[in-house]
């Protein structure tokens, strides 16, 4: 399903561009144009699957704490594809400023696809009286980036959505997100409502200029 420009956060695009506060009009126009192009070029693809936690080789204290009380978890992956990359490379040659804006908008687009997917999965589980923890991705806290390979293999993500990981742990296509979400039983008294902010767990907490602007990247 395609994205519409409205679904891609202009605010997040500006933040990725390093813009603090209200952007000057020229930059705002450029960011808006980049968001429009990103919606046009993105080819959103997603895959998810449920696993028993006992079957997942998760390591790290942070992911364990995040999934406390869960016995099952959802692995998910979302990408905007690599079709936009050729346009982006060409744009870097003809209009580098527009290319940087598009690069940022595509990042925001990947986030938008992931948000939409998480909401769909959450609705699916809500219908069965279950809820999901917020997303937690490889690389957060002490949850190792090296889990990407296992996560993609579990989802058969190469075959299903064309998502791969490079030998040094980078997702390709670049504008992609993977995550784990724990499944919680919504029984009275023990329910743990999902929270939005996982910022405190983020290794970039102190340095993050987006957080300082009051924007959550949703992770």
């Amino acid at each position: 399903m395609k994205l519409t420009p409205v679904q891609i956060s202009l605010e997040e695009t500006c933040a990725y561009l390093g813009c603090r506060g209200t952007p000057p009009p020229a930059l705002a126009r450029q960011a808006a144009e980049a968001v429009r192009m990103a919606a046009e070029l993105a080819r959103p693809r997603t895959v998810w699957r449920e696993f028993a936690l006992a079957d997942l080789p998760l390591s790290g204290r942070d992911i364990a704490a995040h999934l406390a009380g869960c016995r099952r978890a959802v692995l998910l992956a979302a990408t905007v594809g690599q079709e936009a990359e050729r346009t982006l490379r060409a744009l870097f040659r003809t209009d580098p400023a527009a290319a940087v804006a598009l690069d940022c908008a595509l990042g925001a687009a990947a986030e938008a696809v992931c948000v939409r997917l998480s909401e769909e999965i959450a609705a699916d589980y809500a219908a069965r009286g279950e809820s999901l923890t917020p997303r937690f991705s490889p690389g957060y806290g002490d949850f190792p980036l090296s889990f990407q390979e296992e996560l993609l293999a579990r989802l058969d993500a190469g075959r299903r959505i064309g998502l791969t990981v490079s030998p040094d742990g980078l997702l390709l296509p670049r504008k992609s997100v993977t995550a784990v979400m724990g499944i919680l039983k919504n029984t009275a008294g023990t329910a743990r409502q999902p929270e939005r902010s996982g910022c405190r767990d983020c290794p970039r907490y102190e340095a993050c200029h987006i957080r300082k602007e009051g924007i959550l990247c949703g992770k």
Partner: protein
Amino acid sequence: MENKLTRLLARKPFVLLDGAMGTMLQKEGLKPGERPELFVLQHPEKVTAVHRQYLESGSNILYTCTFGASRRKLANSGTDPQTVIRAAFAAARQAADGFAGERPLLALDIGPIGEMLYPAGMLRFEEAYALFKEQLLAGAELGADLVVFETMTDLGELRAAVLAAKECTNLPVVATMTFEAGGRTFTGCSAAAMARTIEGLGADALGVNCSLGPDALLPIAREIAASTSLPLVVKANAGLPDPRDGSYSLTPALFAQQMAAFAECGMRLAGGCCGTTPAHIAALRDALAPLAPAPQPKPAPAFCSATRILPAGGVHIIGERLNPTGKKQFQQALLDGDIDYILDQGLEQAGAGAELLDLNVGMPGVDEPALMRQAVEELQSVLSLPLQIDSSDPAAIEAGLRAFHGVGIVNSVNGDAETLEKILPLVKKYGAFVVGLTLDSAGIPKTAAERLAIARRILDAALSYGIPREKVLIDCLTLTVSAQ
């Protein structure tokens, strides 16, 4: 060229392939995310049992359990391609040996490397080639009857694979890619571009596998059939998996019913991919039994890149600015190895409406083959136009053709026997078109009759190398009045 696969195809209206291996092994204890290629080392008897069930369901060709047996994918697994491929062939042969029916062909199965090729990723074309070559040599040595490249999404990667097979083995080649509902792979490669490009490289059969259920693949199969004269392969999934438990939705009867519809677009090799079982293949056998494949019409000629098709008929605009002749700045850029200059020129012409780009990087003092390869790689990283490789140096022509992921044009040959002998085999090998200039070592003849005679000579030579007539483009060299 006749081989084991073409002989099998000549005997049967439909060649029955097998069904899924991975999802079958999951029922035998393979965990999600675990690799079938490692499972076959530990439980060869379970793999043999799956093969045997497919034979009993009517499969004429078995795909060995070697899909992910590349050195790159097996890194850190403690084993190597040779060991896995040996075990997988032993398991398949074991199933074939004790089988009372017709002996199947054993296909060395090769899937994608799992890393993206440059420019989307870091893996270079020649590295991909070397990885495929290693698997191919191992399979050929073990007596594989053919090789199957499947589930590919990047035309560049599939080209590396097919070229490795053609250059390093004598195995018949089957190539299938996985497409989305829109008829393109995850990298944007269209079904038509895949068919034209891979037929050009000399594959024996091609088509689609995995992707979706059969119903959704029908328009894609039609597009492939309209773009190739080669036998069409369809190996569809049993629908899509349920994210909760991984189960597939299509029953054998429904799968077979949907697959039977492909007879109408000329399918010759039929099987199942993810989620299919021996019951699906048996149902498919029964559904195809009363049918005959429709004859495939001859496709109209077209140039293409991985993402764009340009029908060869009509008038097209070829950008001719990527040529140093008489251009001081371009010459300097070539001497400096300034690829950026070439890219900017290419983008400018594309922006101005060029449908094809002619590329000439030849001048004294440069390494023309190396420069040609680099220029092609970089141009196709920013543009989707088909390319015309313009050189008189066979090494540069080959470098350009090898790097270009599509069906391009070689510019040019003339009636000179030595030129024809050196360049036409390259045109044939890479499936390109060729421009024939109606001149020879004696110069440009004055009369139309003499030029026609040269054109005939070029065409006859091209045909003798197996280049199809429609891929020979004759330039009659109409000169300007002022030059006469």
